[in-house]
């Protein structure tokens, strides 16, 4: 069985025809590689790490998995890899529970913690031991080592690797069996610019081969440059399941704010406020004006004889949009509960 786009129906005029893919795969009797998560819940004692999560990760595209630290991303990924047992709900990888695959390295490749190696074992032997469990030969180990650029250091102790080298080793381990589904936890953490570019290109290449690629990050800007689709979670719950483009578009209207400091802040605030315009005070005493361009704010101040000391347009970043989104979700959840319940819930 091959998960690659190698059927003639999937290629038309030398170009990939995505519509033909499912048909081709169905005809070949294979299951589409994908991750299907249904009502997934994971509790550790009194702490709920993941709560009633439902989403599907589709093949042929890079899906970002976004959430603040402690949101439950790693827990979810451990359950996708069959390492943690769900408290309730289900995970299917390529149509089967993750632990039911006879050739696991062909079905799902994962990297959770790039530092999870025996520190005094060489990178080569680390990969060889993993490969041997599925009968993958040394030639494939060499091939993967070359592909991730670790050829020169393969004989060195993996414990001495820099974080960037460890990430590459982790990715090599994930791709040993040429898996249909790839799950990587924070793969760009600690990488230099060159490494980040390489991983982005690699992820796109994997997706273009028709694989399901699921990549977590706690940085929105990172995901926006890597992923096409987006799963956002906060406090173990699903917040958004959307395309990155839609997410950015929905965040855009509220994005621009004008920051202004003047000789008479209170007077200026009264002057500017209207049903369409909101004015807030920033921590440092500046006013944050939404709904008016900077030019209008300056003109209004000038007309009223107020001296403008500072005037700038602030473009709310994707990061802000993400923080707003997760913040709203937390507030939305917190409203019907007494404050004590919330603080308990947040203790992780």
């Amino acid at each position, binding site marked *: 069985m*091959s998960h*690659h786009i190698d059927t003639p129906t999937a290629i038309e005029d030398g170009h990939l025809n995505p519509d033909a893919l499912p048909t081709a795969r169905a005809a070949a009797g294979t299951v589409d590689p994908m991750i299907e998560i249904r009502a997934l819940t994971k509790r550790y004692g009194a702490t709920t790490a993941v709560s009633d999560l439902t989403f599907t990760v589709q093949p042929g595209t890079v899906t970002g998995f976004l959430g603040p630290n402690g949101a439950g991303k790693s827990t979810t990924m*451990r359950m996708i*890899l*069959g*390492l*943690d*047992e769900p408290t309730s709900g289900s995970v299917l990888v390529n149509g089967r529970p993750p*632990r*039911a*695959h*006879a*050739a*696991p*390295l*062909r079905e*799902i490749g*994962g990297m*959770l*913690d790039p*530092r*999870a*190696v*025996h*520190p*005094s074992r*060489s990178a080569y*032997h680390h990969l*060889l*031991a*993993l*490969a*041997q*469990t*599925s*009968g*993958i*030969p040394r030639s*494939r180990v060499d*091939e*993967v080592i070359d*592909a*991730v*650029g*670790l050829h*020169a250091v393969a004989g060195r102790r993996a414990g001495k690797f820099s974080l*960037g*080298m460890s990430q*590459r080793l982790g990715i090599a*381990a994930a791709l040993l*069996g*040429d898996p249909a589904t790839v799950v990587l936890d924070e793969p760009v953490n600690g990488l230099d610019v*060159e490494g980040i570019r*390489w*991983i982005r*290109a*690699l992820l*796109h*290449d*994997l997706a273009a081969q028709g694989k399901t690629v699921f990549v977590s990050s706690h940085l929105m800007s990172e995901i926006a440059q890597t992923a096409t689709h987006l799963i956002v979670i906060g406090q173990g719950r699903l917040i958004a399941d959307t395309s990155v483009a839609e997410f950015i578009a929905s965040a855009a209207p509220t994005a621009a704010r004008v920051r202004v400091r003047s000789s008479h802040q209170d007077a200026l605030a009264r002057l500017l406020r209207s049903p369409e315009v909101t004015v807030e005070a920033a921590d440092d005493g500046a006013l944050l004006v939404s709904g008016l361009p900077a030019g209008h704010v300056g003109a209004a101040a000038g007309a009223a004889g107020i001296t403008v000391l500072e005037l700038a347009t602030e473009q709310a970043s994707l990061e802000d949009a993400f923080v707003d989104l997760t913040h709203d979700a937390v507030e939305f959840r917190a409203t019907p509960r007494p404050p004590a319940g919330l603080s308990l819930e947040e203790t992780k």
Partner: protein
Amino acid sequence: MTTWTHDQARVPATVPAYSQPQRVTQARVLRSEWTKLRTQPSAGWALLSAAVLIIGFGILYSLLREARPPHGATAAGAFDPAAVSLSGVQLAQIAAGVLGVLLITSEYASGLIRASFAAVPRRLPVLWGKAAVLAAATVAVCLPAAVAAFLAGQSILGRQHLAVSLSQPGVARAVLGSALYLAVAGLLGLGLGALLRSTAGGISALFGLLFAVQIAAGFLPGNWSGEVGKFLPATAGQAVTTVHPDPAVSLAPWTGFGMFCLYAAAVLGLAAMRMRRGDA
């Protein structure tokens, strides 16, 4: 470092396809565990120190008994020359047991166990694979060491005409039994490590089972001490390392060894139950 940085810039961001058949089998996991064992320097050191302790302590104690031979008929009758030359096994069991613990707890400590279980989702083949390579490597190193310790010890004791030969009843069995005892001590450590998932916890539990319960049994009144004591792990297991076990305080050689194997099997069984289900 410079070479590597240079390398990475040229690496095209793709990994070649691989379409050969794959399947996890116990034999393949066994091979993988053998690769892990032979490329984990601490395992080599532990086995080397076991061999050094068997031979070195055996020679030292033989020299001591050569200098201070048994006096009187009773003492001479109770003197066990094979046991003297194999006394290093008492120390080597620490090295063998700790190796067993470390073989699995090092994977839990580093997080490598997750990669191992992702590659072998049924998980238990990993435990059985580790058990098999541990037992085989321990016997492979400790049997020659025990033979060497025996031969060296007997040549020393022979100068006082105290030596026995391998062909005498029970002697070859005691030498072989010493290596087998160490292998099972390693398996006991492996089981405890897998059960407790902590190096400190595993080693403590191992010392408790091998030494502390024996000491505690010594406090029992009268012949209770011997009757209970002979069923305890180390006493039972060491019956096979003794040429003429005393029936008052020891089981028959292979019965005792079987008992010791049961302890190891029980601990491994509990570890397997914990490993198979739940979180890695």
